[in-house]
């Protein structure tokens, strides 16, 4: 015979107490407020970011007095005037924008075939291998990856050592613009492929087969069928890669060696080297504006793709 006592275990009693306490605090389980209560912690967390943006806005309107090293107690647009009049700002924004556009184009060009092969292959093992090859660098982080490139491309690096074995003079492969762009493309590839792959999965293979059976060769099938259908994915991937590379810090810092700064590096320098917080803050807001305008332009011309509102993958 089972003991009667165990039919109402201690954990149930515990739960009862909790439920009673919960009902005291929130009668009817919060009622219609429930979703808002559930959202509160997340909203508060993101709130720190919103407040942080306000602080940046405030700092950007205060100008540094170079004799006292204090910031003005009044608001002025001087930092912005300086940013727009100095050629330094234009150079750095231009370098970042051009770099981001090149990186985006090359990344999409490489990511598309990768995603296509991964999605269409009939071998589950191969698909797994391609996924792991994608996730491993994605999970390792930028600094370690950049460190790997230093070992490979440095003056005493693997490539130059190998070249020396066949009698070629060492090449300067690092600390130039192409090195930064190369590092960025490698960093962005997983983002590009992972944003593209679902869009390719959504294209039925039969449609391609139909195109080729009607006489289109693979290039025509690609340009008239697959690419147009993959457009939302291409836009989504493009926007993510563009904004991430436009605002990147680590690759220009490590692979550019200080000579190929992007906007993020310039902002860092203003805060930590020059200690001109106001100018740095105005650069930060200009970067956010340039980024948003570029994305807005893409959305206006091409549509919002997979990033359309509500595509928060419900």
């Amino acid at each position, binding site marked *: 015979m089972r003991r009667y006592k165990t039919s109402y275990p201690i954990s149930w009693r515990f739960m009862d107490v909790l439920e009673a306490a919960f009902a005291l605090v929130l009668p009817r389980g919060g009622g219609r407020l429930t979703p808002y209560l559930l959202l509160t912690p997340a909203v508060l967390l993101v709130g720190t970011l919103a407040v942080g*943006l306000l602080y*940046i806005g405030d700092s950007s309107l205060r100008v540094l007095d170079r004799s006292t090293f204090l910031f003005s107690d009044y608001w002025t647009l001087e930092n912005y005037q300086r940013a727009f009049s100095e050629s330094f700002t234009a150079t750095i924004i231009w370098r970042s924008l051009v770099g981001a556009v090149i990186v985006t184009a090359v990344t999409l060009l490489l990511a598309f075939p990768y995603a296509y*092969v991964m999605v269409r292959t009939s071998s589950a093992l191969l698909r797994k291998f391609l996924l792991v090859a994608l996730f491993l660098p994605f999970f390792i982080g930028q600094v370690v990856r950049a460190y790997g490139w230093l*070992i490979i491309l440095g003056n005493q690096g693997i490539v130059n050592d190998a070249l020396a074995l066949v009698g070629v003079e060492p090449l300067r492969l690092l600390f130039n613009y192409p090195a930064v762009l190369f590092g960025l493309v490698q960093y962005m590839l997983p983002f590009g492929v992972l944003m593209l792959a679902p869009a390719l999965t*959504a294209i039925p293979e039969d449609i391609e087969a139909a195109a080729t059976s009607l006489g289109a060769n693979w290039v025509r099938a690609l340009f008239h069928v697959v690419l147009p259908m993959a457009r939302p994915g291409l836009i989504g991937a493009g926007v993510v890669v563009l904004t991430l590379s436009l605002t990147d810090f680590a690759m220009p810092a490590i692979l550019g060696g200080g000579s190929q700064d992007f906007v993020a590096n310039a902002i860092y320098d203003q805060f930590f080297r020059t200690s001109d917080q106001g100018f740095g803050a105005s650069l930060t807001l200009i970067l956010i504006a340039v980024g948003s305008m570029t994305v807005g332009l893409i959305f206006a011309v091409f549509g919002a793709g997979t990033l359309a509102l509500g595509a928060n*993958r*419900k």
Partner: protein
Amino acid sequence: MNRSPTQTIVFWSVAILCVVALSAPTLVVLGASFTAGNIIDFPPDGFSLKWYVAILGERDLQQAFLRSVIVACICVAVSVPAGTLAGIALSKYQVKWAGALQIYLLLPFTVPLIGSGIGLMLLFGELRLLGSLWPIGIATAVINLPFMIWAVSSSAASLDPDLELAAQSCGAGPLQTFFNVTLPAVTPGVITGALLMFILSLNEFLVSLLLVDARIVTLPVQIYNSIRAIITPDLAAVSVVFIAVAALAIIILDRIVGLEVFLKSK
């Protein structure tokens, strides 16, 4: 389906090129960590574990690693409950101003990392919180929160609301319903999200760099500071820690949800 051989060759060549470019830094760091020489050389100077022994004696690196783990744990502890509740709320309930709310919750993705980092640095500086580790944990939780919400809401969509009603009509209170019905249904999403948050926080470099001072550098910042001077193999040995953690995370992720889930069209 029959594909043109040219297409196969072109696409495959690109894919192989990508695999090489993606794996090269990882493999080289792994290889360099086992070198017997004092500098990183090619061809390698033979195999040894001496750099692994060396990092056992380097307190700086160990402490930096420990700090990174603490930051990642704080990030998980903060972001997982917040993101789980938000994900459930967004996918299960009709929320007013859902559009505006989504834009707001996606702020961490739309504001560039340098902007988020500087903003949080100014805020935490004003609140006199800089100099300890937990604000860094909070910061990495904030900047990666959309990943957590996404992971949970994508698995909450498969939760049948009738199940919750059934539990309630059988006499379960709101808490019991939540813990015994709702939460188990979204567990795969919660675990995926938690794993992502841990890895992203452990690896976070830029926001860490902005929020640390010399006494509390995290491991990515420590590595960054050291590679500016000279490239020695002990850094490679430490970097292998990141590679090992990444590999472990991929194995767990594959076991729990399967990596193929990232290929599904929505």
